[in-house]
């Protein structure tokens, strides 16, 4: 780790990617993630890397598909409507079992929506990105330091499992400036060679990057391999954080920006005599099901807070399995939950 520097969230993503050995970025302008491509356009040439502004998000995700197949560490970033367009390429990348990192700096939807921060792409990121039975590993940082650490980690994990990984934030996190320390840079030339990549079949059998299997049994075998991979990812890659949960009687479940706001509300609740804590999933997929389920022994009531109509809420319900009551508080369309509103909700749940 080097010394701390003050940086904007979006730029931190770019810097962390470069330090992770990423030398290729393909993207298309969309607010509120534009600082990421701008940073890559400025910095990648210094590393003999490639920044390419594609003609569309569809093209960008397919350029990522090509570059990932060619063996490179590659990044693309976008915001909600752009991720919908990238979904095509992402499905092929998952089907062809290629590593890459996708950043979604979420804004309000549906449709063109707004450019204000939102968390309404949770379903898309964790369950319904595109056609076919596949998942992304989804990291949800809640501060600038985590943006750096999780973006860096995303590249290693993507290579380890040969799977696309998403880092999901929102407009607030992307625009926020905080002190950050970066990991020591990785030299991409020193990464292990990807024997499966399309780099010219010199002295070896040809490699084919593909997600097509016309024989249904062959395609089922591919799917079984994917499901085995997700099983392994669920066993190994769950990340979550807890705040004041040791003696908590009620828990807020929130991620990303909502978790930051909830943290303040929990402090205020504690001052008001309510023993509240925070359970914060860091990986949205794999969701920390068992870890959240384990809290039901002590927690009497749950409050899920999201900048959406309640999407993660479904995973919270599945984990809690009806053992405890779960309430929801959310804002939509780019509106951000207020601390007081969360506090009021906690007090109301306590019958105060």
């Amino acid at each position, binding site marked *: 780790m080097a010394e701390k520097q003050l940086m904007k969230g979006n730029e931190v993503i770019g810097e962390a990617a470069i330090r992770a050995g990423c030398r290729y970025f393909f993207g298309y302008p969309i607010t509120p993630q534009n600082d990421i491509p701008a940073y890559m356009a400025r910095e990648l040439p210094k590393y003999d890397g490639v920044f390419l502004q594609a003609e569309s998000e*569809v093209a960008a995700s397919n350029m990522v*598909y090509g*570059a990932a197949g060619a063996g490179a560490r590659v990044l693309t970033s976008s915001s909600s409507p752009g991720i919908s367009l990238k979904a095509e390429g992402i499905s092929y990348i998952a089907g062809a079992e290629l590593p890459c990192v996708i950043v979604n700096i979420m804004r309000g939807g549906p449709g063109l929506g707004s450019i204000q921060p939102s968390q309404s792409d949770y379903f898309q990121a964790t369950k319904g990105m595109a056609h076919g039975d596949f998942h992304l590993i989804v990291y949800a940082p809640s501060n600038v330091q985590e943006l750096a650490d999780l973006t860096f980690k995303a590249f290693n994990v993507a290579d380890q499992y040969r799977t696309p990984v998403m880092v999901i934030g929102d407009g607030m996190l992307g625009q926020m400036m905080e002190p950050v320390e970066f990991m020591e840079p990785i030299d991409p030339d020193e990464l292990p060679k990807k024997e499966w990549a399309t780099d010219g079949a010199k002295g070896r059998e040809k490699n084919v990057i593909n997600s097509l299997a016309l024989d249904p049994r062959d395609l089922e075998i591919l799917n079984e391999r994917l499901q085995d991979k997700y099983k392994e990812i669920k066993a190994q890659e769950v990340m979550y954080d807890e705040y004041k949960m040791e003696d908590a009687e009620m828990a807020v479940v929130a991620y990303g920006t909502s978790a930051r706001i909830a943290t303040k509300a929990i402090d205020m609740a504690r001052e008001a005599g309510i023993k509240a804590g925070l359970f914060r999933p860091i990986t949205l997929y794999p969701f920390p099901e068992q870890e959240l389920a384990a809290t039901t022994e002590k927690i009497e009531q749950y409050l899920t807070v999201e900048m959406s109509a309640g999407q993660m809420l479904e995973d919270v319900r599945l984990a809690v399995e009806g053992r405890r009551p779960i309430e929801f508080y959310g804002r939509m369309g780019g509106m951000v939950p207020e601390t007081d509103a969360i506090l009021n909700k906690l007090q109301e749940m306590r019958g105060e």
Partner: protein
Amino acid sequence: MMEKVASYPDSLTEKKFHYCPGCTHGIVHRLVAEIMDEMGIKEETIGVAPVGCSVLAYDYFDCDMHEASHGRAPAVATGIKRVHPDKMVFTYQGDGDLASIGTAEIVHAANRGENITTVFINNAIYGMTGGQMAPTTLEGQKTTTSPYGRNLKEAGNPIRMTEMLSVLDGPAFIARVSVHDPKHIRQAKKALRKAFRLQKEGKGFTMIEVLSTCPTNWGIKPQESLEWLEEYMMPVYPLDVYKDIEEVE
């Protein structure tokens, strides 16, 4: 010893083509493979297969291959070429792939002067999906989705991608050829070889449009389809070199 005058190209696998009798995909595959043999580039070439009849091209070319999504082959090829600028990258695309769903990708790859070669098969119909109207389908041509013949007022006009792309500054070489007889096959090979050579020299985007047959979906015999190509397709899609960077240099 007899002199060997012809052999199976080393750059094709021995896998049997799935193409229909009389389809000219096989001829074009062979031409591309012969050029790879002659240039000695099999071990440094990455091909990008499309969605369409040639979706399984990755089984036939004996080099590294990448299967793209529908229309996106030029974007996939861009990603590969940017990672390996010293390698040869080609896309092999049909008319539905390149001239309909993939128009944005081909236009911008061409406009960037992306140093790749595109082999564009124009047979005026969607083959793989069973004979639907393509953007290149001729006026009055009957297909499953233009059962009364293509009506220009409703369905627009046959699209000339080669002419469109040749007005851009990025491409180095763009030509339209045909493979309906031996003379034209030789000319097609010459154009393809030039396209690959220019890529090797780093001159930019090259594309060869190849007029091809689809007897199965045209609903005529293989021999008749060669005649149909010459009689009906060639007047709408004239054979020529439309852009040649070496002529202006």
